[in-house]
C-alpha cells in the first residue's frame, strides 16, 4: 500500500465516511433525526440549530436516510480524528464538519514523530475496534513502516490506545496501566465507546468514555472506525501526512 504517498484504498461504497450537518436547512420545529438517533448524538433545543456529536455517533445512517431536508450528508471522507472533544460537534453556522486533528506540539513530535510505541487497553471494548487496530499491524497496512508499534508492556510504551466505554471493572487496571507509562505520554481514544460510552453511555457499569478518567490527546470516532480512519488519525498526530491529504 502506497498510502500516504498515494491515494488510500477506497472506503466500501456503503460506508459513507464522515458526516456533514447543514443545520441552516433544518425547519425550526423538525425533530426527525433527534428522535431516531439511537445514541442521542443529535440534540436540538427549541429554536436553535441542531448539534450532531460525532463522538456519540455509531454512523448507522438512520438520520441521513430519514432527514426530510437532506441536512445530514455522508461526505465519503475517511478522515475523522480530532484533538479536542468539541471538534467532533457539528453545528451551523461555521462548524458543518469536524475540525481535523493537528499534529503534536514540536517537543512531543521530536520524541514521538518517528517512533511511537503504544500499549492497547480494551476497557469494555467489544473487540471490533480492537480487531481494526490489530489489522493495521498486518502486512496489508504495515504500521511498522511509520515507526508505530503496539507493545506488550506499558513500560515500553509512549502512550495508550484505549477502546471501550471504560467499564468500571476496568477503571483501576486502566489507571494503573496509564501510571506505568513514563512521562511524557499520550492517550488515544478509539471508537464511539471510548469517546462517549457509545451504545453504553450512562450505564451505571461504565464511565462513559476515557476522558472521564484520563486526559485524551486524540479522538478517533466510529463504531468501529475503519482502519484507514485510525491510521489517518495516528499519522495526523505525528505530522506524517503529505500536505495535500
Amino acid at each position, binding site marked *: 500500500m502506497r498510502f500516504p504517498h498515494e491515494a488510500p484504498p477506497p472506503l466500501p461504497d456503503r460506508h459513507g465516511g464522515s458526516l456533514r450537518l447543514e443545520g441552516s436547512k433544518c425547519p425550526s420545529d423538525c425533530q426527525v433525526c433527534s428522535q431516531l438517533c439511537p445514541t442521542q448524538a443529535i440534540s436540538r433545543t427549541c429554536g436553535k440549530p441542531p448539534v450532531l456529536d460525532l463522538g456519540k455517533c455509531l454512523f448507522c445512517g438512520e438520520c441521513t436516510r430519514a432527514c426530510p431536508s437532506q441536512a445530514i450528508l455522508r461526505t465519503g471522507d475517511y478522515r475523522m480524528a480530532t484533538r479536542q472533544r468539541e471538534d467532533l460537534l457539528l453545528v451551523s453556522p461555521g462548524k458543518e464538519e469536524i475540525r481535523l486533528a493537528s499534529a503534536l506540539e514540536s517537543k512531543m513530535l521530536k520524541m514521538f514523530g518517528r517512533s511511537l510505541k503504544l500499549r492497547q487497553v480494551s476497557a469494555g471494548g467489544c473487540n*471490533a475496534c*480492537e480487531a481494526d487496530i490489530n489489522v493495521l*499491524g498486518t502486512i496489508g497496512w504495515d504500521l511498522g513502516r511509520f515507526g508505530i508499534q*503496539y507493545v506488550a508492556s506499558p513500560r515500553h510504551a509512549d502512550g495508550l490506545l484505549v477502546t*471501550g466505554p471504560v467499564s468500571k471493572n476496568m477503571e483501576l*487496571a486502566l489507571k494503573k496501566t496509564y501510571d506505568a507509562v513514563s512521562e511524557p505520554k499520550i492517550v488515544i481514544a478509539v471508537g464511539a465507546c471510548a469517546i462517549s460510552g457509545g451504545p453504553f453511555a450512562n450505564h451505571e457499569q461504565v464511565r462513559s468514555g476515557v476522558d472521564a478518567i484520563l486526559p485524551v490527546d486524540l479522538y478517533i470516532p466510529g*463504531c468501529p472506525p*475503519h482502519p484507514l480512519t485510525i491510521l489517518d488519525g495516528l499519522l495526523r498526530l505525528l505530522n506524517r501526512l503529505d500536505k495535500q491529504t
Partner: protein
Amino acid sequence: MNVLNSFALLANGEALDWNQIPEYSLSDFIRNVSEELELGARMVSFFALPEGSEKRLVAVLALDSSSVLCVSRSQPFSGSFPSLTPKYPEAHLFEREIYEQYGLLPLGHPWLKPVRKNLNVIQDPKNFFSVEGAEIHEVSVGPVHAGVIEPGHFRFQCDGEEVLHLEIALGYQHRGIEEALLGGPHRLSVYQIETIAGDTTIGHSSAYAQALEALAGVQAPLYALWVRAIALELERLANHTGDLGALANDVAFIPTSSACGKIRGDFLNLTALLCGNRFGRGMVRPGFSPIDCEPKRLALLSDRFEQTLRDALQAVGWFWDSASSRARFEQVGSVETSMAAKIGLVGLAARSCGLVRDVRFDHPTGWYRFAQVPLAVWPDGDVFSRAKVRWLEMQHSGEFLKEQFNSPPEPESAEKITRLAPDKLAVSLIEGWRGEICHVALTDSEGRFRRYKVTDPSFHNWMGLALALRNQAISDFPICNKSFNLSYCGFDL
C-alpha cells in the same frame, strides 16, 4: 411417567405463551430438570427472574437428536435451591449467575463465586483455588494482556513448567447489557446486541432478530434469511482465518500468520461490501433485510469471495504442509469427549472433541432449513483438532456460500416489527462461529422485555480452556488459548 410432560416443547425460533409453560414446585422442578439431563438433554439456558417479592427459575434444555427444545419453570420462591452442579457440571456457571443476579443460593454448589459483577470478590486472591506444596508456584496474568486483546485474569497453579490447575476470572468487560434490555426493545437495543461481542455481530443480531420475529409472530422474508446466512458464514470464515493465522503465529510459522492476518481483513471487506461495515453493523434487523444485494453487487461479491477463499485455503495449506509446525498442535491441550459433554461445551470446541453438536444441523432455522452446511467433527479434543475443525469449516462454509450466491431469492418488502405479543417466551439459537448463541426473551403484559437472557458460546466454553491446560506446559497456554479464542465481552455482557 414421561418426564417430557413436565416441559413445554418448542422448536428453535418459536415462542410460547408464558402460561403454557408448566410450573412446578421448586423440588419437582429441580427433579424434572435433573431427570431430563440424566436422559441426555443439554442445558441451553438456566436463569431466574423476579416474580413479586420472590423469584422463579426457568430452564431451557435441548434434545439435539430430536431437534426439540423444552422449557419448564419453578413456582416463585425465595432463599435457596438445590444445586444441580455436583451431578451436572454444565449448570455450574448458570447457577453462579443466578446467585449473582438474583441472590438465590444454589445449595451444594462447589465453587460459588460471582461471575462478572462483584470484581473485588472475583479477583481476591483468597477466592482462587490454590494448590499447596513447597514445589508449587502460582502465575497470575492479566487483566491487561500483552497483545491487542480484551482483559481477563488467569491464575495458574504450577509444579515447575506443568500447570496443575488454571482458574479464569472474568467480569472486566461488564457493560450491563441484560439490565439495559429490560423494558425494551428500546431504540438502542439492537445496537447493544450488535456489540455484545463485536466479532460475532451477525451471530448475536441474528439471534435477536429471530427472537423478536417469534415474539411478533412474523415470518422474515426469504431474502432476509438468505442475507443472514451469507453474513453468518462470512463472519465464520473471517474469524476462522484469523484464528488459524494467530495459531500459526504462536508456533512461529510466519507465512500463514502474515497472510491470514491480511486475508481475515479481506473477508471483513466482503461483509463491508454488503452493508458498509466490516463487522456487519446494520446488516440484520428483525422482520426484514435492510440490505439489498443487487445483481451487480452479488457478482462482485462472488468474484472477490472466490479469490479470498482461494487465498485463505492456500495460506492455511502452507501450515498443514509443515510437519514440524503441525506437530506442535498434536496432543496439546486435550479435552476428553466425556468431559466436553459433561461441562456442556458447544460449537467448534465441542465438535473438536468428537461431539456432534451444531445448531445449523440440530435445530436449523432460517435459510439453513433449505440449504445445509456439512458438519465438521474431529475426535481428538486437542489444539490440532480445534485447528482442523476450523479448517474443515472454512471449506464447508466456502462451498456453501458459492452455492448460495447462485440462488438469491427475490427481494420482498417487509415491515419493521413494531409490536411484540404480550406474555410470551421465545428461544432463539444461532450457530455463531464460536458456537451456540442463545437468546431467551420473555415479554410482559405490555409486550415489553420482562427478561432477556443472553448466552454467548463463551459462557459454556471458558471452562473447557481451563481443563485443557491441566498437566500441560505453561508455555503452551498461548496456543491452547488461541485454539479456543473465546469472547471476554460476550461472557461479561
